[in-house]
Each structure stands twice: as structure tokens, then as C-alpha cells.
């Protein structure tokens, strides 16, 4: 698997899109920091980028890579290599190279800005870690969709739909149900709803740093425990790990049964 990972990674690292992605983040970081000069504002803007754009790019890259490398995959399948190694290797290759573009692209301007001397470093590291998690999660989901759909157009459509659902529609439905059932205690419901959507989960994880004052304004005991202690942070991270693991296992299982 590591060999496949290595080759997929090198392949992507040399592709134009990785540079575009990398330069985009570099530019974003530079613009936010040096034209704006307000670190807190930069972190908030970055949060929006990370919870919306990173999943989208992970999804598109993942599905594109999967379909684009179909013939190459077939070449590999005829080699004495385990099937799961091929797909997991490709997946980790894509996800790792995307994460690298993100981390280096955003990291460089912040390092030059003198981030290490600033106390925003923790917020910023949290952003990058969350971004990397989201990349891994959505690339995995995209690979899964790719494996389940032979038809490229269909696969692409489903993947974008999944992103749209997680990024926007889910919250809409969530808000509607909160308003509709506002007479009932909704603490547990809300928390579970957040935990089952990786974008919301990442958002809340960052909120724990950025808006903790507001989050603590809510009176529910469950929220209090979640936001007020490290419990929330730890649980969120555990869920993110789970969100990476489940689609990865599914890739492994689907790839085992699939015909090419």
C-alpha cells in the first residue's frame, strides 16, 4: 500500500492542480494577513474557507482522481498487489497531497507573519488540523462514491450533492427541526446532529476556540458539559477520527467485491 501511496502522491504533487490548490492557499493566507493585518479576522475567514471549501475540493479531487486513474488502476489490478492496497494507497495519496497543499500553502504566510510569536498559533493549528481531517473525510467519501458508481457523471453528481447536503442543506433541516420542536428538550438531539455531520463537527470544534463566550451562554446542561470542559474537544476529535475510519473501511470492503 505504501508504494501505491507514494506513487499516487508523487503523481499528484506534480500535477498542475496541486500547484493551483497550493497557490490558492498561499495567496489566501498572504491576502488575509498582510492586507488585513487583523489576525482574529483572518482566522474567522479561514474558518469559513476550511469548513466549506476544503470539503468541496477534497470531494472534487477525490472523485476526479478516481475516475481519471481508472485505466491505471486496472493496470495495477493485474499486478500482484492486494486490491485494498491499491485503493487505500490511492486514497491516502490524494488525501495526503491535498492536506500538504493546504497546510504548507496556509502555513507559509502565517510563519512569515510571525505566527510563532503570537498566541493565535493554537487557533491556527486547530484550523489546519481540522482542515486536514476534512480533506481525509471528504476524499474518502468521494472515493467511496466513485467505487459505487461506474458512471462518471452520476458519481460526480452524487459527490457534489453529498457536499452540498453536508455543507448547507443539513444545517437547514437541522434548524427547521429545532424551531419546529422548540417545545421539547433538544440538547441531546442537537449534539448528535452535530456529531453526525463532519462539517458541523469541525465548525463546532473551531467555535470552541473562537466563540466560546457565546456558546457558554446557553443554559442546557448537556451543552455546558460539552462546551465547558475538554470533553467536547476530545469527543469531537474522536468523532472526526471515526469519520475518517468508517469510509476508509467501506472503501476497503467495496473494493474487495467490485468488478473491473
Amino acid at each position: 500500500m505504501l508504494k501505491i501511496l507514494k506513487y499516487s502522491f508523487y503523481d499528484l504533487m506534480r500535477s498542475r492542480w496541486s500547484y493551483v490548490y497550493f497557490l490558492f492557499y498561499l495567496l489566501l493566507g498572504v491576502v488575509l494577513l498582510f492586507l488585513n493585518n487583523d489576525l482574529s479576522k483572518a482566522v474567522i475567514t479561514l474558518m469559513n474557507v476550511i469548513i466549506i471549501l476544503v470539503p468541496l475540493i477534497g470531494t472534487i479531487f477525490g472523485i476526479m482522481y478516481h475516475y481519471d486513474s481508472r485505466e491505471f488502476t486496472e493496470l495495477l489490478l493485474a499486478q500482484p498487489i492486494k486490491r485494498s492496497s491499491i485503493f487505500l494507497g490511492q486514497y491516502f495519496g490524494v488525501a495526503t497531497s491535498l492536506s500538504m497543499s493546504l497546510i504548507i500553502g496556509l502555513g507559509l504566510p502565517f510563519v512569515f507573519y510571525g505566527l510563532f510569536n503570537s498566541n493565535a498559533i493554537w487557533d491556527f493549528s486547530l484550523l489546519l488540523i481540522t482542515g486536514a481531517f476534512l480533506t481525509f473525510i471528504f476524499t474518502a467519501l468521494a472515493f467511496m462514491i466513485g467505487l459505487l458508481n461506474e458512471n462518471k457523471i452520476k458519481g460526480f453528481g452524487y459527490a457534489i450533492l453529498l457536499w452540498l447536503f453536508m455543507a448547507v442543506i443539513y444545517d437547514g433541516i437541522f434548524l427547521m427541526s429545532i424551531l419546529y420542536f422548540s417545545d421539547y428538550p433538544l440538547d441531546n438531539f442537537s449534539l448528535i446532529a452535530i456529531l453526525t455531520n463532519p462539517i458541523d463537527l469541525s465548525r463546532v470544534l473551531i467555535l470552541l476556540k473562537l466563540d466560546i463566550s457565546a456558546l457558554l451562554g446557553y443554559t442546557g446542561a448537556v451543552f455546558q458539559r460539552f462546551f465547558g470542559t475538554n470533553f467536547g474537544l476530545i469527543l469531537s476529535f474522536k468523532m472526526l477520527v471515526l469519520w475518517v475510519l468508517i469510509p476508509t473501511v467501506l472503501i476497503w470492503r467495496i473494493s474487495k467485491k467490485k468488478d473491473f
Partner: protein
Amino acid sequence: MKKLTYIFILGFLILSVQYSWANTITVCGSCETKSIKAAIAIAEEGDTILVKPGVYKESGIKVDKGLTIIGEGLPTIDGQDKGEIVTIGADNVTLDGFKIINVGSSYTTDYASVRVVTSKNFVIQNLVLEKLFFGIYVQRSQHGKILNNKVTGEAVSEFNSGNAIHLWHSKNIEITGNDVRHVRDGIYLEFSDFIIIRSNISKYNVRYGLHFMFSNDDLYEYNTFEGNGAGVAVMFSKRIDMHHNQFRKNWGTASYGLLLKEISDAKITNNVFFENTVGITSEVCNRIEYKNNDFISNGWAMNMKGGSYATKVINNNFIHNSFDISYLGRMNDNKFDGNYWSTYTGYDLDKNGIGDVPYRPVKLFSYIVNKAPESIILLRSLFIDIIDFSEKVSPVFTPDDLIDENPKIKRIEHDRN
């Protein structure tokens, strides 16, 4: 020249006579007078009692004449949990430089380390109060000074703790330079007017850093309120001036930097509200002026619960608050003008420093959060941004008259000294 010499001699004579009237009684373990009580018993009006270093196990000390009681090298008065320790019941008393510990606690009587009853011109300064229930309790007294005391309690809940500095039915008292921590209310005022509270530090108190009830014409400035259950509560009071204070990190479900409840004619200027769950909560308040304040990184900068008339919010900075303004009920005759809002996205084509597009500080989402508090968890979600944006374009739920016509483009630099 000769005349001058006479006057000088005369003055000296008068002074020395006075001096000879005012004796100094020294108290120490090996002195003739071994206890403060004994010293008070033999002292005359106007005398000075000088207490040498040591531990004095006394309680129920009643100062019933105008004495100056000075501790040298911070002697300790240990009340051994027997109840009130020092009670001042006369005019012109000065209590200076003691460490007073172990007040008894009781659920029926509010024991205090130092109590001032119906006295004038008292000075209580440089005390260190620990293991206390109430710290300095002033009732029906006037023209006193409470200076540079350090009160550190061990309060865990509101119900079995007292206040560090407590004023009841008192007037013209100055409270300056005190440091009060870990009690119920740092400073508490009830029916107390013309009080000046200046440069105190009030931290980690379980209820309020500073608490006004039914008190009028008071001033507090240059104080720091941090990490209290809530910073400052001003209730049922009139004409309170609040300047240059710092309200920091007052976090919690019902927590805020400043609570205003049924007050009127207050001026709130040049304060800093930093990282509070709510910067200011106000309820039924009239003619309040908020000017030159900084609201930075609060959950809600201002939470107006309605019934407020003629509020003026002018020239403040609203920076990185999760919500700038939230309100319930009707807003009447309020004016928002010339503030800086960090979430303002307008432009300034004529370069006069004022945005060309008015700013609406109330977001649809804050309205939603008021209705369904759980939805706070959707803060900064893309969906929320979308509905906030559409509300901004065509307001339906948020009041259209709540608007800042002259939002500043740059953060206003306030003088913070």
C-alpha cells in the same frame, strides 16, 4: 518679624498641647497592654493605639470612641470563629494595617470582619481579610473611606458566603484601591448614595464583582471585574456613572459583564468589555448613554431585553463579537450612531471614514437564537450566513429602525488612560 515669631510659638504651643492630649497606647505580647480590647478600654477619644506584630486572639472588639488603631508590621487579629471581630460604633475612627482572620459563620447572623455602625469620618485601610463571611460591613454611616484592603474569601456558592465590602444605607463613601476575590459579591451597595468606587480589582467572585441595589448618584471608574459569576449588576438605581472600567472573562450561562435592570440616566463611557458571555444585558432601562466603549470578543456585545427608551449607543467599537446586538420585545427611540462594527462590509467612496451604507447590527440569527437557544450550535454555519445575508438584503424579522447610519470604517482609537 517679631510678630511672625509669636505666631509661630503660639502655633507650636497649641500643637504640643493637642499632642499631649492625644496619647499613644502600645499593644504587644510583652507590653503592659496585651490586648486591643484592653487598649480601647483605657484609651481616650482621639488617642492612637499602636499594635506591634503578633497574633491577637480576640473577637467582639468594640471601638466606641474616635480612635486611630494602627497595626505595625501587619499584626493578626484571630477571631477564632467566635463571631464578629471589630465593630466600629463611633465617629472619626481609623483602622489601619491588620490581618483579620476567622470570623465565625452563621446562617442567621451576617458576621463581618469589620462592621461600621452609624459612624462618620471613618477610615479603614490596608487590611488583609481572610477566612471571612462578610468583610467590611458598613451600615447607616457617612463620609468614610475604605482604601487598599485585600479581601480573599473561599466562597463556593452564593448561599453560604458573604460580600467583601458591603454598604447599606450609607452615603458619601469612597472605596478605592481594594482587591476583593472569591467572595459572594465583591462590592455590594444597597440604599447607598454618592459613593465613589475607584481603581478596585474584583475577581472570581461567585455572584457579582460589584452590585448596586436601590442606590443613586454613584460613580465607579477604573475598576477591573474579571471572572466573576457576573461582572457588575446595577439594579433599581438612578444616575450611576460608569467609566474606564474593564469587564473581562465573565463566563457562564447567566453571565455578563454588566447587568442593567430598571435603571435610568446612567452614563457608560470608555469601558472595555472583553470576552464576556454577554457584554451588557439591559432590561427596562431609560436614558442610558453608551459612549466610547470597546466590546471585544464577547458572545453578545449588548443584549437588550426590551422596555428600553432613549438609549444612545455612540462611538463604540464592536469587534469580533459572536453577536453585536440582540434584543427582545420592542425597541423605542434608540439611537445607534458612529460606531465601528468589525462585521461591517460596506464601503466608503467619499473617504470620510464613515461607511456609505448603513449597518444593521441585529442579525436574523440572533433572533433565532432567542427563540430556540439550541440553535446557537449553528453559529457561523454557511446556512446561517446565507439566511443572515438574505435578511440583510430584505429585512423581515429584524427591526428596520435599528440601524447605524454612520458606521465607522476603522476602529476608533479611544483614550484608555
